[in-house]
């Protein structure tokens, strides 16, 4: 609940009252900070630090004592070079930032498509994030909670409990091609905390996604575009389909991050139904047609 209130009130929430003086200054600055940031020509670690710095530092999102959940994409039994999963170094770098900001726990999880242990291990995320101090945990079938949605097509859907209970959630998708959804970015990545028979979400996909995601928006979305999968997504498997983009997008608003992410693919918002519907149904925190974007080139 903390997270959602925080988002809705954007900066000047009631929480601010309980914060130390230095925080007041930060919140005063928030309106001047960019709504989204795109960093280019960096390495995983430098992309993360540049993006976080531009957004006002990780301390803007993660406070001392927070339990943070990272949701990378590690759904596939593929190595990092195939760009089917989030870059492990990105997850490790964000883990370190969160711990330095005073997070008491950084949990990393994803509901996978291939056998879970294989995905965790071969994505490289298990080892990299564990070494960085994260608690990489397997998803357990008994830990889903039916979330009441009252949506347009869905009344409820099971969502992973740890995700709902975390103080802060950082959504770390990889930018990639997707046959059915055309692209897989921040919104699509949230399917990794959804329970039930996820295949059925594909039927009336855009509406169902909007119904669910409006209730589970993360604190922060960091799109890893260090490598991008340009075809045969989301599972990939052909190195020729991988493009070295060396970029990263970050925003407190998932929909805005996704809209910005479409630049990398050269798609218009109207081409990508799930993002288009999300914008039309007001799931974005900002005006996506007129985003205040900071563009950084590290090259």
């Amino acid at each position, binding site marked *: 609940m903390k997270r959602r209130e925080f988002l809705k009130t954007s900066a000047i929430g009631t929480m601010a009252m309980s914060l130390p003086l230095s925080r007041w200054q930060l919140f005063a600055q928030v309106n001047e900070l960019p709504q989204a940031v795109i960093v280019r020509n960096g390495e995983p670690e430098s992309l993360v630090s540049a993006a976080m710095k531009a957004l006002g530092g990780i301390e803007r999102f993660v406070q001392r004592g927070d339990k943070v959940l990272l949701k990378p994409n590690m759904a596939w039994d593929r190595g990092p070079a195939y760009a089917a999963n989030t870059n492990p170094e990105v997850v490790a770098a964000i883990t370190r930032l969160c711990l330095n900001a005073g997070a008491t726990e950084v949990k990393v999880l994803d509901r996978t498509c291939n*056998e879970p242990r*294989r995905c965790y291990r071969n994505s490289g995320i298990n080892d990299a994030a564990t070494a960085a101090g994260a608690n990489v945990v*397997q998803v357990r079938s008994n830990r889903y909670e039916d979330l009441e949605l009252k949506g347009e097509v869905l009344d409820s859907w099971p969502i992973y409990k740890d995700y709902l209970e975390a103080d802060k959630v950082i959504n770390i998708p990889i930018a990639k091609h997707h*046959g*059915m959804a055309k692209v897989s970015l921040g919104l699509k990545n949230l399917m990794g905390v959804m329970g039930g*028979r996820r*295949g059925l979400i594909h*039927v009336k996909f855009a509406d169902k996604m909007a119904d669910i995601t409006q209730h589970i928006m993360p604190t922060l979305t960091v799109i890893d575009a260090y490598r991008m999968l340009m075809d*045969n997504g989301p*599972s990939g498997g052909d190195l020729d389909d991988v493009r070295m983009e060396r970029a990263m997008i970050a925003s407190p608003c998932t929909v805005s991050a996704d809209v910005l992410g479409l630049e990398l693919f050269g798609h218009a918002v109207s081409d990508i139904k799930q993002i288009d519907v999300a914008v039309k149904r007001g799931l974005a925190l900002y005006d996506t047609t007129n985003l205040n974007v900071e563009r950084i080139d590290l090259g």
Partner: protein
Amino acid sequence: MNFSMSMQNLRKLVQVAFFILFIYLFLVARYPYEIIMGSDFGLRLSPLIPLFTFIDTLSIPPLVIPGLIILILTPFLGRFFCSWICPLGTCLDATDKLINTPKNKLARSWDRWRYLKFANLIALIIMAVLSLNLWGYLDPLSIFNRMLTVILYPLATLFSENLLIALSSISFLETPAYYLYDLFKDNMMPEGQAYYQQVLLISVFSGGILAAEKLSRRFWCRYVCPAGALLGFLSQFRFYERLVGEECPACNLCISECKMDAIPQDDVSRTNKVECIECFNCGAACPPKTKAITYRWSWKPYHTELDLSRRQVLGGMLTGLGGLGLLSLGLPNRNHARHLIRPPGSLAESEFEDKCIRCLECVRICESNGGCLQPDAFHSSLTQLWLPAAQMRTGYCEYNCNLCAEVCPTDAIKPIALDEKQAWVMGTAYFREDLCIPFARDEDCIVCEEHCPTPEKAIKFETKDVELPHGEVRALKLPYLEPELCIGCGICEFKCPLDGEAGIFVTKPADPQEDATYYG
């Protein structure tokens, strides 16, 4: 502690150690399979593997070495395998303690059935010579592994998983319960609970073997086991003998303690070498005051005759022939071809049936991967029972996994490299447009396309404007298959979100040579 006491204790120690080794080898047969000793090593200790591999191939490949060592030691040591190593034997000994097995004196009416194990062996050899290998069904190590895979392990995970989840709902136990749960999941249990078809038949089969302990001790080993028969045959002239001293008052305690009832009632000084499994119970039973029993090497051993008449040999041979005939009279049914999807790397179907001992080790390791392998049922032949079969609605073949081949003890599944496996065609997918959501319900889906693992997806789609019944035109993504790219891994069938039957299914590619019986 005197010598014979310690021999019994040594035997018990080794027996427990081997049992733990077998359980360990079973448990490590899971992803990631990074161990020093292959899980197939344990199964290769079976003394039947060298014999029947030789009959089948007229060669002695390296994989038979563990079993061969047992065979070579047997003429010297006797049937030590049965009480020192065989994990099924250990299970039977444990069952004895639970179900109050009858004393030897009371079980003697079964004794005329001792020939049965030899007849079994003869029948299996006759069938094998005529190229039907069914001995795997009766191989004790195979039986043990089958029991572990299909019954004991799933039961253990079911109970421990549910227990720990129940405990985790008690507030102060939540942390330790989840800790144990994660520990178990990471090191023992599969990510998902293991469920197997054929639970009933395999329970009846292996449960029957255990329950037979109610008839006599080591009933299976005395009367049925073909491995016991082979080892017994080899130990007729066993060099290691039991010696009974003059001081023996013939109290007959050793007779009643003998696991195999291998000490003749009329002559305590002799041992039935064919039946004795070297458990050393006799020496331990001998009262401390007398201690008449000792053991020693003898280079002029006496001979024990096999409990087998010419008529019974003939009977065994005829049973073998008859069995061969009957089992070959299955009704081939081409509709069942789709059930015959064997693991990647498998030999051609008829050869595979001969080599596979139905130990289900591949099924076991598959559980920690895609989980498609199941013990097969009867389809168009009785001999298909418990062969591994990929059933794509219960699991799928994981693209980056070739572990089933690595654990096969008889190389019925050839150990193939990962890149070879990834190109191995297990089957081919077919769409069922009467069920498939985009075709049958005019909605987007293509979950199959999403999961298709080949570098260039074998499932592709085209976007078409489809006019719905009430006039609306909808752009739909309609999937189609490129058969030459499909390897039949079945993830499409497994992930299809439809209830019941999937909108896409994998079937085995036709083998024109095996279809020779059909017109056409």
